[in-house]
């Protein structure tokens, strides 16, 4: 019964994906996994919407960064485009907390009552920030902190989101943009580039007229606005009727079934229930070890540089400057599970982790100049930092492929040792062995 339900949800979602790919967001497949070719931007957008993640979509102006997110959220969350547009925050220096989060009810304020009118951005589960790097750092922080906790505060009042996802778009750095500092970047689960689809598909896009009209249903939007206006708190129940109305429209016109809130929750439970294969687990541990370990200083730190000639020069710890944060494994597991669910796998396998890793790693890692220099001149189909992350993933994977049995045996031995049994302490060259010994109190 559960399997049947899973299949049904997955089929629904895939149908939505196919619909967007064929009618709204034209793109080239650039991610190949288990015999399937998909577009990374679209797929990761879907996974973000389903899992409630946070995605940073980058790219040149006009390549559909925001569009992909809008379409995906419209169908997954059953919201007309007009509502999504109204709730999106655009990045410019003059954005204020009042425009982003909420404002006082001025009428009531005059009477001495502090009542907050929450913004659509705060109320709705879909949060899109356009050109986040044009926001000052304080406003970036405001948004990311709010999304991190799922709670918005203004004038000592709070609003909790039961479900939400965040899409932030950003152009490449130019004179009008600010830098997204590492602590803020770290809060994003994944980064993906919205690429140019090529001349032929671009011509197709140019020819197509009013693609938006598909999801831009006036009557439904009015219903939503009315519901939102009526209930300033925007509790989910008050929007349910509007959701049902819009879902009916999509069903009647396009044969599409959107997901209800309950269904989305069920999907999340299904994803969370997926077991992680031991090999995938070990691979992730290897990666984390290489990204955080330092034999000299205990761990990687951005203000401490590795010596030349260190024993671990051949590992990633030598090529990165900063330490992997604890959000990284969370992001990887979240999206790897989502990907495994998407593909109908029974468990999360190495390939799922390997596919997600570059997207989760690229924006979080400060690479050494020398490493980037080597990667810079290689042929690639994505921005340099994504390419560097992909290359690093491939390097770790090669090492994992060679010594996976030994690594997993070492982890098994460690489990037994910690359980009090007599086992030989694992020995090996990889930083993970040193980490194991530290965990066992042997180093």
């Amino acid at each position, binding site marked *: 019964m559960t399997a049947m339900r899973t299949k049904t949800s997955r089929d629904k979602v895939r149908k939505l994906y196919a619909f967007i790919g064929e009618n709204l967001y034209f793109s080239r497949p650039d991610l190949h996994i288990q015999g399937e070719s998909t577009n990374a931007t679209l797929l990761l957008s879907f996974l973000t919407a389903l899992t409630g993640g946070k995605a940073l979509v980058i790219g040149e102006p006009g390549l559909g960064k925001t569009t992909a997110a809008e379409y995906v959220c419209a169908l997954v969350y059953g919201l007309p485009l007009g509502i999504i547009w109204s709730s999106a925050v655009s990045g410019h220096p003059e954005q204020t907390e009042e425009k982003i989060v909420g404002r006082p009810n001025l009428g009531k304020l005059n009477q001495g009552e502090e009542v907050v009118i929450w913004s659509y951005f705060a109320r709705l589960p879909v949060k899109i920030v356009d050109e986040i790097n044009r926001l000052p750092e304080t406003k970036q922080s405001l948004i990311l902190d709010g999304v991190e906790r799922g709670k918005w505060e203004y004038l000592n009042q709070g609003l909790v989101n039961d479900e939400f996802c965040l899409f932030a778009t950003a152009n490449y750095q130019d004179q009008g943009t600010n830098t997204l500092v590492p602590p803020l970047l770290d809060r994003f689960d994944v980064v993906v580039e919205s690429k140019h689809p090529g001349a032929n598909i671009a011509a197709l896009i140019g020819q197509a007229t009013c693609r938006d009209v598909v999801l831009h249903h006036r009557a439904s939007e009015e219903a939503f606005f009315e519901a939102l206006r009526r209930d300033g708190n925007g509790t989910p129940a008050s929007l349910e009727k509007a959701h049902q109305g819009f879902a009916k429209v999509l069903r009647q016109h396009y044969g599409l079934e959107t997901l209800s809130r309950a269904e989305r929750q069920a999907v999340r439970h299904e994803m969370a229930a997926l077991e992680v294969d*031991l090999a995938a687990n070990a691979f992730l541990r290897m990666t984390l070890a290489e990204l955080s370990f330092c034999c000299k200083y205990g761990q990687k730190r951005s203000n401490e540089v590795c010596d030349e000639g260190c024993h671990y020069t051949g590992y990633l710890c030598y090529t990165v400057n900063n330490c992997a944060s604890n959000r990284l494994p969370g992001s990887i597991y979240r999206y790897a599970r989502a990907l495994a669910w998407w593909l109908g796998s029974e468990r999360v396998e190495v390939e799922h982790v390997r596919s997600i890793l570059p997207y989760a790693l690229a924006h979080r890692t400060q690479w050494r100049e020398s490493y980037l220099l080597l990667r810079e001149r290689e042929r690639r189909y994505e921005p340099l930092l994504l390419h560097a992350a992909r290359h690093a993933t491939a390097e770790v994977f090669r090492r994992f492929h060679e010594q996976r*049995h030994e690594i997993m*045996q070492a*982890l*098994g031995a460690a*489990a037994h040792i*910690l359980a009090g049994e007599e086992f030989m302490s694992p020995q090996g060259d990889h930083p993970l062995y040193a980490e194991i010994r530290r*965990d066992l109190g042997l180093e």
Partner: protein
Amino acid sequence: MVNPFQEFFAYTTSARELPLDHILARRDRVLQRLLQSYQAFVEEESTQLVWVVEQGALSRAYATAVDALKGVEFTVEDVEDMCVELDGANGIATPLGAPSGLFIAAMCNHVQNRDIVLNLRNLVRRWPFLGYRLPRGRHLQLEGDAGDFVGALLEGGEVTVTGNAGNYAGIGMRSGLLRIGYSSGKHTAEGMRGGTIRVQGRIAGMGRVKRGTVYEGNQRVFPAEKEGEWTGSR
């Protein structure tokens, strides 16, 4: 405290164990034991303040080497690997000249295989005393150039050097055969009491031979050929 390895508790590897793993493990074990034996031998010998090439000292050192090898089961391939190990600059072994040669000789004399081939071409060092007291029934082939004292005190075995030999080749040999593919150095066959030495090339200098036969090319040089006597090589 949470056990971060709990998921791997029941893990059993799916990788096959190949005979290669056993071969390498055994090789490493034996090599380790041989190196320990060698280390013990060197330490024992280093208590002698001056290491001299003198029969009494040689016998004693050889006996120490044999003693150090007791209980170690090794093959001819282990002997070859040990030579490579001693030739290298790193490792715990200190590749001293003369004692190393004696140690290798002791290994050659006690290895199970009767036929031993050591490729000296790829080695840097020229150890002396290779083939020392090789007993009857054993054949030691040294490919490349050998050091001094090759085949010293030969006891019936056959030593073949495909290249050149150093000085004092065949010194004190009692019986057996020493073949040298090219030339030998000075004091060849010094104190020789029996057996045969055949040098295909030139002998730089003969030692004081007591008994036995020495050939230089096709010509017998000890005992010297009488006129008309043919001593062509067999």
